[in-house]
């Protein structure tokens, strides 16, 4: 792009629109990799917890979930450091803040419920632990995913959030299974990773 003082009004407006669209597209594409990373982590952790819980019959394996941010945040930081510097705009910032709020709620609610059930040492601690947390996390996830979809103007992402949030809850309550509920999170991880793929492939 070189200097050109002969721009017409229409050309100037077109230039502004094109530049803004390209910049927004690249910012959104850059955000896609974090969705893929956290989606894969969610799927992997849910499968690990599922396998361990299923083989030992102990719901305490759910404590492993707390290792997920410990793995995810350093990986996320490394990914940011290694990639080109891309600024934040309003949409990327809102999406990032939405998922940070999700993380704060998910971690604190899980910690409170797990710790209380652990300290109470109730016979039904395992049951209480598994029953109370999953619906809350599924709803939080569904809201965050759908809100991301609204910001990205993507009906597919909005639908993904609804499927996980509402569909996941239905599956959870209708199946009444404990261990297998981990597979709902595997599905949620896949939805999250697919959101990232959609973002990375976004066109103007």
């Amino acid at each position, binding site marked *: 792009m070189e*200097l050109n003082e002969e721009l017409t*009004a229409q050309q100037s407006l077109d230039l502004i629109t094109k530049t*803004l669209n390209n*910049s927004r597209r690249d*910012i959104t594409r850059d955000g896609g990799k974090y969705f893929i990373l956290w989606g894969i982590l969610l799927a992997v952790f849910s499968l690990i917890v599922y396998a361990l819980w299923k083989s030992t019959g102990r719901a305490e394996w759910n404590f492993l979930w707390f290792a997920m941010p410990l793995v995810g945040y350093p990986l996320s930081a490394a990914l940011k450091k290694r990639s080109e510097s891309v*600024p934040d705009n309003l949409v990327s910032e809102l999406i990032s803040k939405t998922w940070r709020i999700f993380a704060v709620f998910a971690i604190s609610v899980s910690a409170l419920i797990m710790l209380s059930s652990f300290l109470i040492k109730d016979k039904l601690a395992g049951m209480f632990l598994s029953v109370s947390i999953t619906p809350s996390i599924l709803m939080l996830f569904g809201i965050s995913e759908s809100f991301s979809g609204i910001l990205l103007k993507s009906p597919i992402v909005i639908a993904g959030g609804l499927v996980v949030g509402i569909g996941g809850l239905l599956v959870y309550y209708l199946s009444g299974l404990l261990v297998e509920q981990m597979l709902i999170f595997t599905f949620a991880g896949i939805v999250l990773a697919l959101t990232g793929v959609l973002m990375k492939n976004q066109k103007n």
Partner: protein
Amino acid sequence: MFPKLDPLLHSELRLAVMSILSDVKSADFTFLKKQTGATAGNLSVQIDKLSAAGYITVEKGFKGKMPCTTCRITESGAEAFRKYVEALKSYISQK
């Protein structure tokens, strides 16, 4: 009567830089160069002009061991950009 277009913004590269900066908190030189497709020298000159007019601020620092120039739109820059867009719209609507 048509409003006068800001001559500082009525240039392809400067307008592109201002468009990008109007949408982000700040952007570094590498991002602006990639988005505009301009040469480093030309971009640098135009950034200096926008900075001299008080439309953007330029902060030179380091990202790790690499030098990094970060640009940010100022309030007066955002206002000038808004007025410029309004002026363009009035040109087109009165055609």
